[in-house]
């Protein structure tokens, strides 16, 4: 593994199993009445280097969110390996297989991975400042003043120096997402993962969030961004990754992907977004 590798995803498989126990018989036997298995990731390989900005594109249901969520172990995987900074996340290697590691160790490793959710997920009972300070205090065990000294500049960086005392209910969607970004950044992770950070926003609020993300990218933060904002991806990404039905069908620099896509699925995606003629 090269020194500057931050994330290494190797042949990852993920299947969602949903069970319904509807009949008396299935409840008695413990066997599910209906078992639905969906293989969502079918062998994904991806390497992210320090300082890189990766944009993941793909149609709805292609497994983009699932991949991102597997990287910080919000989802389990059945096969393959995911390393962040050289460490397996959520698992230990034992006799060639994976066994779950202690939750506290996973938690420790997650402090190194920032995650920004589509629906912000701000702590609703805390102010903007409280949201950013909370993990610094609860996880990093900093004192209130130390936490504040880190939180305030981060909120100022995302342009919310004047909204620090607002509760989430008194913030717009764009402001909430910027607080969420500040909260993740304040932990000084070595990589930031964004799962469609602007998809839940009114169109007029998208710009303010994208410009914050761009600013962070320019500071050299390693980032993986799942997005439907093609223009933004083209502008900001060092590398575009295209997913379809659980695999990566194509990756390359934006200049190549947007002008000379190789895979038919990439071409279909780009023409649907009006980038390529249909």
């Amino acid at each position, binding site marked *: 593994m090269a020194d500057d590798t931050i994330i290494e995803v190797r042949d990852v498989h993920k299947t969602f199993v949903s069970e319904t126990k509807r009949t008396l018989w299935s409840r008695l036997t413990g066997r599910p009445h209906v078992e639905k298995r969906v293989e969502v990731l079918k062998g994904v390989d991806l390497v992210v280097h320090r300082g890189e900005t990766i944009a993941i594109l793909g149609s709805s249901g292609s497994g983009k969110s699932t991949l991102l969520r597997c990287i*910080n172990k*919000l989802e389990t995987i059945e096969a393959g390996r995911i390393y962040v900074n050289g460490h397996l996340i959520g698992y230990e290697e034992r006799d060639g297989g994976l066994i779950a590691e202690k*939750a*506290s160790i996973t*938690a*420790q490793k*997650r*402090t190194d*991975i*920032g*995650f920004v*959710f589509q*629906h912000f*997920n*701000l*702590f*609703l*009972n805390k102010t903007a400042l409280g949201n950013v300070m*909370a*993990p610094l205090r*609860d*996880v*990093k065990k900093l004192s209130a003043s130390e936490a504040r000294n880190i939180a305030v500049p981060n909120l100022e960086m995302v342009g919310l120096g004047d909204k620090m005392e607002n*509760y989430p*209910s008194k913030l717009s969607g764009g402001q909430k997402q910027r607080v*969420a970004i500040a*909260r*993740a950044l304040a*932990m000084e992770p070595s990589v930031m993962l964004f799962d469609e950070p602007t998809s839940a926003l009114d169109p007029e609020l998208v710009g303010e969030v994208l410009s914050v993300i761009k600013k962070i990218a320019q500071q050299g933060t390693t980032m993986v961004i799942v997005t439907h904002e093609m223009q933004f991806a083209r502008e900001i990404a060092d590398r575009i990754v295209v997913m379809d039905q659980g695999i990566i069908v194509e990756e390359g620099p934006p200049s190549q992907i947007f002008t000379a896509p190789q895979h038919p699925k990439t071409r279909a995606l780009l023409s649907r977004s009006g980038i390529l003629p249909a």
Partner: protein
Amino acid sequence: MDFITNTLAVFPALLFAVPVVVQLALGAMALALVLGLLIALARISNIKILRGIATFYLEVIRGTPLLVQLVYIFFVLPSIGVSIEPVPAGILGLGLNYAAYLSEVFRSAILSVEHGQTEAALSLGYTPTKTLWKVVIPQSFVVSMGPIGNYFIAMVKDTALTSVIAVTEILKTANILNSQTFQTTAIYTAAAILYLIISLPLSRIVVVLERKARANG
């Protein structure tokens, strides 16, 4: 006119029982809150035995009258060598009983906290336990504030049941007065009004608390 004067005349005597009611209600509520939260946590835990014990407790408490529980604690426990004074017995009985009901409040409040809150905490490096205590439970308190308040008011009124285990609270005091003066109407009217005077402001406070909680949610 006589009726009103007589009723008013009873009040000072009944007021002496108010500190006992406060003691019962606060003591039992403290017990019910702590125990109720523990039962709720047991009910949502992964450990089967804990879930079983909690569910059994819940069924026993909800399946028997509070009055019977109080009588049991005060009159039956001494036969196995556990004698408890009236007021502590009242606090214990009310507390054990309300713990069961509050545990249901806590449980549904905990489950109602959006999963996104948990995921955010986990992604920031909170352990599952820390997520529960620092993120989920504090938010569930906001949701449970109203129901807890309503149970508190119900409990204040249920303190009247402890009159049967020799606690000199409002009703017992009224009974004593009645046996001395036989002014039945005046005495029990005064007692009823006194309960109203206590519970009406409490209901107002609960409404305000609920509104505040909703505003910040």
